[in-house]
């Protein structure tokens, strides 16, 4: 009985692996069939094969690489600046009450405004320049990382800080070693959330007007009614965001190296 139960459990486990492997191909197959059956308009709802052709053409023309680099550069630079600023200010507001009294109320008012809402004013300030796009991504990343760091710093084990004080740890080392590393588990969570946020804001930034980039390409394709290209662009964006999140998760696990 128990052996039978176990073997049926393994059978279920095996079956679910097979089903998982078939999930995406089956979905694509159904999509292909529906699109070709004539039930839907293939101009608006092209089959995956059309999307694949569009993507291959995108890659072959060399535009894909240029678009990818343009988008990645915006996300990477915005993320780096926003994260660095968030960590530095988070440590200061988390550790020093006076700095917190000065900045936290302001940050708490600004933080809930969706970065996308800043597009109009960013266009007024920076036009269609790269600075404006960078600004949007930095804005989105900064508050998330700041809040995570601020909370993380306040959760640092008081005992660790006292132990470090008793050993004569000077203030800079206290901040950049004991407090930073003590808060690191929280900071990495904030950074990971900020990775997805940086992609959201990228979309807003490129839709507002750009000359290259994956979202820019999606918009151009839409204007030309190249639905296959639009879907290919969406898939590329999804894949990129997924890869960024996964690699960050792996990185974050290594960052807290002592666990």
């Amino acid at each position, binding site marked *: 009985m128990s052996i039978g139960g176990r073997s049926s459990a393994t059978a279920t486990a095996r079956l679910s692996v097979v089903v998982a492997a078939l999930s995406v191909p089956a979905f694509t197959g159904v999509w292909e069939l529906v699109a070709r059956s004539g039930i839907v308009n293939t101009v608006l709802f092209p089959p995956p094969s059309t999307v694949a052709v569009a993507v291959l053409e995108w890659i072959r023309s060399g535009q894909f690489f240029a678009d990818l680099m343009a988008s990645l550069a915006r996300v990477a630079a915005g993320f780096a600046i926003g994260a660095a600023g968030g960590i530095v200010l988070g440590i200061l507001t988390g550790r020093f009450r006076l700095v917190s009294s000065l900045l936290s109320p302001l940050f708490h008012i600004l933080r809930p405004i969706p970065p996308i809402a800043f597009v109009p004013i960013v266009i007024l300030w920076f036009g269609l320049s790269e600075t404006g796009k960078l600004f949007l991504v930095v804005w989105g990343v900064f508050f998330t990382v700041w809040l995570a760091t601020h909370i993380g710093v306040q959760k640092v*084990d008081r*005992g*660790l800080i*006292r*132990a*470090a*004080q*008793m*050993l*004569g*740890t*000077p203030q800079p*080392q206290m901040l950049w070693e*004991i407090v930073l*590393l003590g808060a*690191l588990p929280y900071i990495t969570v904030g950074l990971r959330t900020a990775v997805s946020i940086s992609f959201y804001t990228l979309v807003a930034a490129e839709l507002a007007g750009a000359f290259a980039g994956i979202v820019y390409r999606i918009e151009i394709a839409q204007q030309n009614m190249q639905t296959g290209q639009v879907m290919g662009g969406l898939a590329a964006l999804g894949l990129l965001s997924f890869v960024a999140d996964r690699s960050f998760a792996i990185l974050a696990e290594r960052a807290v*190296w*002592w*666990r």
Partner: protein
Amino acid sequence: MTPSLLRPDQPLRLVDTYPPSAAARQAIIRVEDLSIVFDAPSGQVIAVDRVSLAVAQGEFVSIVGPSGCGKSTLLNAMAGLERPFEGQVLMAGEAMRAPRPEIGMVFQQPHLFPWKSVRRNIAHGPRALGKPKAEALRIADGLIEMIGLTRFASAYPHTLSGGMQQRVAIARALANQPSVLLMDEPFGALDAQTRAVMQDNLLELRERINATIVFVTHDIDEAILLSDRVLIMSAGPGRILKDLQVSLPRPRSSAIVAEAAYLALKRDCLDLIRSEGRRAFEQMEIKT
């Protein structure tokens, strides 16, 4: 009995009018009329109430009392981690306002830096004080050998047992060669067997270093076994009730707990604590 330095009911400035004993002249720690008050939701709570005491150079003094009697607060004030409400703490003649590296501290929890290996944890103090890396690591290696953890020098704290972690914490506190070592129930979180081993280790260690040690505990056996003097504190507000000289010969080991002199001391302590406990308990009942 030798005249006690401690007069719980009188401020210590009267020490100077005592026949100046050797101990009084060399007092490295002086707590003068110290009161510490905490803000609580129900109003201000007096944690330490006009405590005065002196500890001589090289002495091992334990502070014993029930939980919540303010003994840890008193110790934190000696460490410079707690500000006096009134009075002051003088370490080697200088008032304590902030922690100083020549005053080492071991807490109830090891509080090791989880991101540092055993070796780097111990080297932290010397590094913080600006010693070159090589020298700091050399100091650490010497202490690791002394605590018998050479095999674990590059291990991270979470891989060690509670007793081993606490040994590392003691070594880390010693790395700055403190003149005073403050210990706040350092073995309180350990199981009985490990605690006994750690007590013997500390007795051995004490023969090798010449730091003055103030040791807070609620365990009377531990206090008598380790100390030259035991101060018994009362609860709410924290005051020192009695100053007991422990004139048992050294070197000691945990075997002395069966000796008559030891038992007599312990009986004295217990009587005092029991009557004090009863008084505190009755007071609580009247209040409520």
